């Protein structure tokens, strides 16, 4: 494998594009087995609580398998699956913590936006007394409001990117490292991604762009089916149900098609970040050989 070119050369950090290429290649080589795992994962979603843990663990399993390929110690899905099932509930704990974290951040952002609006309002009130009472168009108020909206958009967008990038790896250390649990794996993702925010954002954007061509055929098929079912649904409402089921099914298939790509890219990113942040792979040659 050229990721680790020859035994004497350490694992090198990868460029932004190569992280994506490597992820895509790993998915391509193991297409059938990873896709099967993705379908199994989404089937588990239907079972409450236990199924959700299984879903998280099965998706993380794809990352673990991809990682095992990268470090040239390939595992079979059943071997790796046994490791992950042993810490199944940690995946649920992680999911719960992430859910609370994101809700917390969202509330924080909303409060911040509210405070910003309040401050702007007070400032405007002091400098332009009677601005609100005056019905006439006030250019200063309009300009300030417009700026405020821009600040809002910038703020929301950057918080969104920050959360996406810094927590992108949460399930990977839990699936790979021995001494992690559902809480410490989140911290691990935060630490590993430090200083690499823009690289990760670029990787996320590139991967999203590349999932378009993979999903387009299914979306087109879905649209064709929906349109052709519409006249039938007007006559018989049962067809509306059929259309909804087909819609859900095709959407699930198209998500399952690209989710292994995200998981393999996360595995490559994990290797890359460990190599950058921890000198992973830097080792002098073994004398005994």
């Amino acid at each position, binding site marked *: 494998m050229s990721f680790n070119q020859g035994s004497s050369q350490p694992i090198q950090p990868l460029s932004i594009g190569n992280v994506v*290429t490597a992820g895509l290649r790993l998915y391509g080589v193991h297409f059938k087995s990873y896709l099967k795992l993705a379908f199994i994962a989404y089937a588990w979603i239907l079972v409450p609580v236990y199924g959700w843990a299984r879903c998280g663990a099965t998706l993380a399993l794809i990352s673990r398998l991809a990682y095992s390929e990268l470090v040239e110690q390939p595992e079979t899905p059943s071997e790796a699956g046994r490791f992950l099932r042993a810490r199944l509930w940690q995946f649920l704990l992680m999911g719960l913590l992430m859910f609370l974290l994101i809700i917390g951040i969202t509330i924080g952002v909303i409060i911040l936006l509210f405070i910003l609006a309040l401050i702007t309002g007070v400032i405007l009130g002091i400098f332009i007394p009677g601005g609100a009472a005056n019905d006439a168009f006030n250019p200063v108020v309009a300009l300030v409001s417009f700026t405020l909206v821009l600040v809002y958009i910038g703020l929301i967008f950057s918080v969104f990117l920050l959360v996406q990038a810094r927590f992108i790896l949460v399930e990977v250390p839990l699936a790979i490292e021995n001494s992690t649990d559902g809480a410490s794996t989140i911290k691990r993702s935060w630490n590993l991604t430090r200083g690499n925010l823009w690289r990760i954002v*670029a990787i996320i954007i590139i991967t999203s762009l590349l999932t*378009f061509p993979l999903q387009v055929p299914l979306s087109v098929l879905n649209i064709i089916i929906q349109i052709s079912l519409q006249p039938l649904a007007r006559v018989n409402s049962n067809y509306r149900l059929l259309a909804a089921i087909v819609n859900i099914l095709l959407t699930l298939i198209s998500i399952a098609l690209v989710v292994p790509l995200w998981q393999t890219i996360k595995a490559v990113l994990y290797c890359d970040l460990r190599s950058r942040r921890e*000198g992973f792979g830097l080792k*002098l040659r073994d004398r005994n050989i």
Partner: protein
Amino acid sequence: MHIFNRVKFVTPESVELEFTLAGIGSRTFALLIDYHVLALIIALIFTIWLTVSYQIQTFGKQIFGEQADNWVVAIAFFILFAVYAGYFVFFETLWQGQTPGKRLAKIRVVRDDGRPVGLQQTTLRALLRPFDEISFIGALLIMFNRKEKRLGDFVAGTIVIQTSSIAVSEKQKLTLSESSNLACEKILETTNLSPMLPDDFAVIREYLVRRHIMSKQARAALAIELTQQVQSIIQLNNLPDGISPDTFLEGIYLAYQKTSIG
């Protein structure tokens, strides 16, 4: 299994050169950057056009009468296409197969036999670019054929290769602490470095270059680990007094440079 596709060239002197193909990730990244630059350029031209087009329109009315509006729109579209295609032709010809985006992504267009591209190749690639981008034909082609060629590459007889496989070492400079010279002298006095192989020094150099972007704990742990490995190779039981593993590795690296030069 090779993660990245490779390509071999044989020069007329039968020297074999091997390159890594760019890969869909780097090519998308380059395109992303290029389109942002292109958008800026087009925005600039559009601003200029707003003022110029009015004059063209009034002038055109005297010649073409009521048809003038169509002509102005036609000219605008022509300029737009010229800028869009011209951007890639201009940079790829001038910078030997690179555009600003490709430079950033560290990739380059070359001919199938490894020679630099000329005006002919870059023009063909640029003219076929719109067809490659309609319904992602180009992206799918790059993903699914071994030579990673899009339509434009097939017609022009070009491939896209990586200019550098090293992502970090170039940007980070090797800086050594002040105490490293002292450590180096002590090491040269007391130890024999001959069991160390060049590969080992390459690893130590890699550590010294990359340590600044590592996390603190990981860096300290890795320094101790590498130091122990060096110690077992050169059979040194104790580190010289007052030298940390980090400085010890710096000293080893300096000592190696001195012995290999002297």
